[in-house]
C-alpha cells in the first residue's frame, strides 16, 4: 500500500534536501562582505513606506472567505466526477441541485458587488 507513495517520499526528500542544502551551502561557502550599497533593497522593489505590521483592510478577508467557500464546493465535485458514470442521470440531477443552490450564492455575491474592489 505505502509502496505506491515512494515517489512522493522521494520528492519530499529532494525538496527538503534542496531547501536546507542551498541555505547551508551558501552560509558555508558564500563570502559575506556587506556594505551599505549591497544591503540596499536594490532589486526587491522600493524602500519601505511603512511598517508591515499594520492592520489590513477587511476587503482582503471577504476575498479569502469566498475563495474558501467555493473551494469547498469544488471538493464535493471530485467524488462525484469519479463516480459520474456509475451514478448516471440521478447523480447528475443531485449535483445539479447542489450547484444551482450555490449558484444562487454566486449571483448574490456578484449582484452585491462583493467581488468589486471598493475604494
Amino acid at each position, binding site marked *: *500500500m*505505502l509502496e505506491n*507513495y515512494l515517489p512522493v517520499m522521494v520528492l519530499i526528500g529532494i525538496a527538503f534536501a534542496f531547501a536546507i542544502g542551498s541555505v547551508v551551502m551558501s552560509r558555508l561557502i558564500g563570502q559575506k562582505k556587506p556594505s551599505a550599497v549591497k544591503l540596499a533593497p536594490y532589486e526587491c522593489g522600493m524602500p519601505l513606506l511603512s511598517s*508591515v*505590521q*499594520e*492592520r*489590513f483592510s*477587511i*476587503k*482582503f*478577508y*471577504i476575498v*479569502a*472567505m*469566498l*475563495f*474558501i*467557500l467555493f*473551494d*469547498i*464546493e469544488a*471538493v*464535493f465535485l*471530485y*467524488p*462525484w466526477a*469519479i*463516480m459520474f458514470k*456509475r*451514478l448516471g442521470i*440521478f*447523480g447528475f440531477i*443531485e449535483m445539479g*441541485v*447542489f450547484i444551482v*443552490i*450555490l449558484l*444562487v*450564492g*454566486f449571483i*448574490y*455575491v456578484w449582484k*452585491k*458587488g*462583493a467581488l468589486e474592489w*471598493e475604494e
Partner: protein
Amino acid sequence: MEAILFYLTALVAVVAAFFVTKCRNPVNSALCLVTNFICLAVFYVMLEAPFMAAIQIMVYAGAIMVLIVFVIMLLNLGTAVKSRYTHGLAAGGVLSVLMLLVATVFLGKGSATATGGEVTSELIQSYGHTELIGRAMFTDFLLPFEIASILLLVAIIGAVVLSKRKV
C-alpha cells in the same frame, strides 16, 4: 517500515502542535499549524484514505490556513506577544492530563482501536477509496450532501453581509 514512518510523523505532529502554542509570534504558530496539518494528511494516507489526505492539504493547509493568516493580518497580531500566560498554563496542564487519562482508558478497553465495520482494506483495494466516498455521499447520505450546499450558501451570504460596508 510503516511503524517507523508512523512514529516519525507522529513525533513531528506533536512537536509542531507544541510549537503552535509555544511560539510568541502568531505567524510562526500558523506555520507550525501547517506542519501539523500535513502530518495529519500523512496519517490519512497510512489509513488508506488518500482522498481525505488530498482534502486535508487542500482545505486545511490551503484554505483554512489562508483564513487564519488573514485574521492575524486583520487583527494586527504580527508582533510577538510579550506578556506571559500563567493562568492558562495550569488549566491547560490539568486538561491535557485528563485527556491523556481518557485516551488511556479507551485504548485499554480497545473500543477506540476497533477495526470492524463494512469498509475493509480489501474493499478499498478493489473498489477504490474515492469511489467509496462518492457512492456513500450520493446514495446513503444524499440529504446531508444537499444540506451542505445550503450551509455553504448561508456562509456566503453571511460573509458578504458581515464584511461589506454597504450591503
